[in-house]
């Protein structure tokens, strides 16, 4: 088992005007043939930069790279460009986070997958097509012929990522760099992609550099891991050893932030704050032909559920199961048939995407004042006072009321969203994937904030998520949804230790919970 890659003393600096800003310090990495190594860190830790440097894709004028990247006896950092290009795609493959934008929208999949063969081999068109179909089958795509002739926008996210993998693997590279390959995907698709990578590593003996902000994913896949923070590698070693005995404080923080299966809350037995009976929602399909009557798509079918006062109710399901639609029905955004009884003021919502949930054209203070302007008779001073109080309650300084949303970080924006939802003092809060778009350490902060607010105000929360691990940390009771209906319900304890339906079991598996406890 020889070494396939040896990176020593990699330093990367960006020159902004004339002052250099170091983004990667003294990065060392060595990989053996067929080894899977993990590279973990938050956004801004330098992990992607290092990976791009290895792949030879950091060629901006304002960047300075120092150090050695040794591949097959040649230093990729200093060798001539043609030589570097001859390795790119043939010996070193790379897949990225966003499969939609990483594929050329106007070229067919087959053409794109074959590109490495066109550049690095002398195969005939027929040979290339044969090879492409074979590799598409290898990445577990049904109907490779059809995918070959499709365009990227005709495939789902998971399929596109498989296509990216196929395209990167078609020349059997020695190294595959996977830069957050599953972050943009659904949890169950994530699990599939991980399995695929594991299999390809076994069958093709490809070394994989797996980059992620999610330590638990890395744990499932990588034998060795490097932890990065602020451009430095703060810890490195065998994955299991690090998990059991983290040395660096940051590593310990990361491990602690993983929503893990400890800590439970007692089920609460109080009155109902919301009762939903036989809820159905259907949408008109988009008109395909001008004169045809559009059909209807049923999203929710005869659903029943209730929320108790003071409870944090989890609502979990894969994408497309209807959980967001249920939230919209409850808040009145979407029309439904059936009955919903409210025993409280109208519920408010916290959204998933902190980037679209705050009006970019308005200051934070204005956004928080809006609900008061529209629904109360308070004077301007009273409103301003409440705004400052609200900010303090979510842990933000008064200073933020004059800032625009784009000046805040993701975590700060989510705090503002929560503050906004609480301005009219609702009793029921609907949180639609409130932490899914955040870094793991920030996730933990926001969850803690929500727990604190719940206790303080005796809120009831409907916590929607696709991630059972997060739900475990915060909810008392859980509803599992699939295809527009509730398929299982139970206390947090029951769901996790005694799941009944296959769907629940699959969700637990995808979240990696069963595997870890086994």
């Amino acid at each position, binding site marked *: 088992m020889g070494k396939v890659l040896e990176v020593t003393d990699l330093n990367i600096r960006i020159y902004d005007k004339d002052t250099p800003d170091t983004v990667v310090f003294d990065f060392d990495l060595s990989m053996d043939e067929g080894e899977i190594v993990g590279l973990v860190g938050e956004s801004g830790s330098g992990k992607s930069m290092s990976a791009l440097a290895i*792949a*030879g*894709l950091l060629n901006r004028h304002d960047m300075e790279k120092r150090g050695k990247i040794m591949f097959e006896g040649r230093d990729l950092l200093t060798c001539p460009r043609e030589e570097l*290009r*001859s*390795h*790119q*795609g*043939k010996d070193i*493959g*790379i897949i*990225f986070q*966003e499969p939609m*934008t*990483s*594929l*050329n*929208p*106007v*070229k067919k999949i087959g053409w794109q997958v074959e*590109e*490495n063969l066109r*550049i*690095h081999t002398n195969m005939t068109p027929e040979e290339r097509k044969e090879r492409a179909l074979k590799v598409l089958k290898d990445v577990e795509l049904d109907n490779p012929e059809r995918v070959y002739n499709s*365009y990227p*926008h*005709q495939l789902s996210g998971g399929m596109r990522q498989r296509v*990216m993998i196929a*395209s*990167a693997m078609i020349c059997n590279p020695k190294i595959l760099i996977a830069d957050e390959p599953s972050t943009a995907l659904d949890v169950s698709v994530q699990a599939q992609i991980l399995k695929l990578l594991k299999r390809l590593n076994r069958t093709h003996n490809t070394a994989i550099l797996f980059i992620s902000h999610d330590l638990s994913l890395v744990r499932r896949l990588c034998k060795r891991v490097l932890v990065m923070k602020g451009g430095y590698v703060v810890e490195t070693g065998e994955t299991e050893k690090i998990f059991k005995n983290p040395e660096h404080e940051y590593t310990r923080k990361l491990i602690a932030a993983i929503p893990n299966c400890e800590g439970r809350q007692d089920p609460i037995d109080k009155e109902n704050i919301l009762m939903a009976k036989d809820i159905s929602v259907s949408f008109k399909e988009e008109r*395909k032909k*001008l004169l045809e009557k559009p059909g209807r798509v049923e999203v929710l079918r005869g659903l029943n559920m209730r929320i108790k006062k003071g409870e944090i109710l989890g609502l979990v399901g894969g994408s497309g199961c209807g959980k967001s639609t249920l939230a919209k029905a409850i808040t009145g955004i979407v029309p439904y048939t059936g009955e919903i009884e409210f025993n409280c003021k109208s519920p408010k919502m916290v959204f998933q995407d902190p980037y679209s949930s705050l009006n970019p054209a308005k200051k934070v203070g204005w956004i928080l004042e809006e609900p008061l302007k529209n629904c109360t008779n308070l004077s301007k001073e009273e409103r301003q006072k409440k705004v400052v109080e609200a900010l303090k309650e979510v842990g933000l300084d008064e200073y933020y009321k004059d800032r625009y949303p784009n000046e805040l970080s993701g975590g700060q924006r989510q705090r503002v969203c929560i503050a906004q939802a609480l301005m009219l003092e609702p009793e029921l809060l609907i949180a639609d994937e409130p932490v899914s778009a955040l870094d793991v350490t920030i996730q933990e902060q926001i969850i803690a904030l929500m727990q604190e607010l719940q206790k303080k105000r005796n809120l009831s929360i409907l916590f929607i998520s696709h991630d059972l691990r997060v739900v475990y940390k915060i909810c008392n009771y859980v509803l599992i949804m699939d295809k527009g209906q509730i398929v299982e319900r139970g206390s947090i304890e029951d769901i996790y230790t005694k799941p009944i339906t296959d769907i629940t079991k699959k969700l637990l598996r995808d979240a990696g919970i069963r595997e870890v406890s086994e």
Partner: protein
Amino acid sequence: MNAKKIIKKFIFMLLTLLLVSFLVFLAFAIIPGDPAVHKLGTQATPESLEALREEMGLNRPFFARYASWLISFVKGDMGISYSYNLPVGSMILDKLPITLTMTALAFMFVLIITFPTGILCAKHNGGKLDRFIVILNQIMMSVPSFFGGILITIIFGVVLKLFMPGGYISYTKNFTKFLGYMCFPAIAIAIPKAAMSIKLLRSSILSEAEKDYARTAYSHGNTTGDVLIHHVLQNAMIPVVTFLGMALADIFAGSIIIEQVFNIPGMGRILLSSISNRDYPVVMAILVLLSSAVIIINFIVDIVYGIIDPRVSQDD
């Protein structure tokens, strides 16, 4: 882009043509007033006016008049000019090739200038040529085509004496000389449009080159040139094609103005005189023709767009 979509668009185009012809006919039927009065004057007796109206078929129901006008129009009979008492068709149709030639020449110049320049500028972004062209573009975009025509007349006609200003040569007399003369107005029209499309192409290429799929292409070992030509260009062209379609329609309509600068006896001259003379049949006919040309051009652009950008198809 499959046949079904093309047929659907074709039908829509026909409907639009119909709509436009209807609107124009409606407008000209209502607003200008009684054509009989126009012909005979305000001093004519009511009987003679009535007789004329009967003869001109003005007393028939509106839709009957529209239908018969439309049918005749399509057959080539566009009515009789009020001023000259000649069939409108004969007045206009031999002028059509002039306008078409000028439009075609101008469009060709735009294409020839835009693509090499735009690609070169994007490739050498930030270089001397690029910066020079960017500045030049800004200025050229602001030059109205007729002023460009005047300047060209002064520089190439008066100073360099490459052509005789105002010396138009008919295509029936000497086709080569005709083409030669027409190049000058064509260039005048082409310059501002070319400047705009160079700017668009260049910025489109530059922004596409920053996208993720370009990075993927580099990761396969493509050179900068490869990425530009095989990956980026097709994507970058999409907004440019849309723009060029509008530009073509603009060129077609704007040719009217440039005719005045170069003394060209095209449709523009007739249109102008008939507007001044209130010669409505002629005005109507020319407007319908010009509008139809624009609609047909848009139809073609739509199809080309569908060919370049596969995301446009919905039937899948």
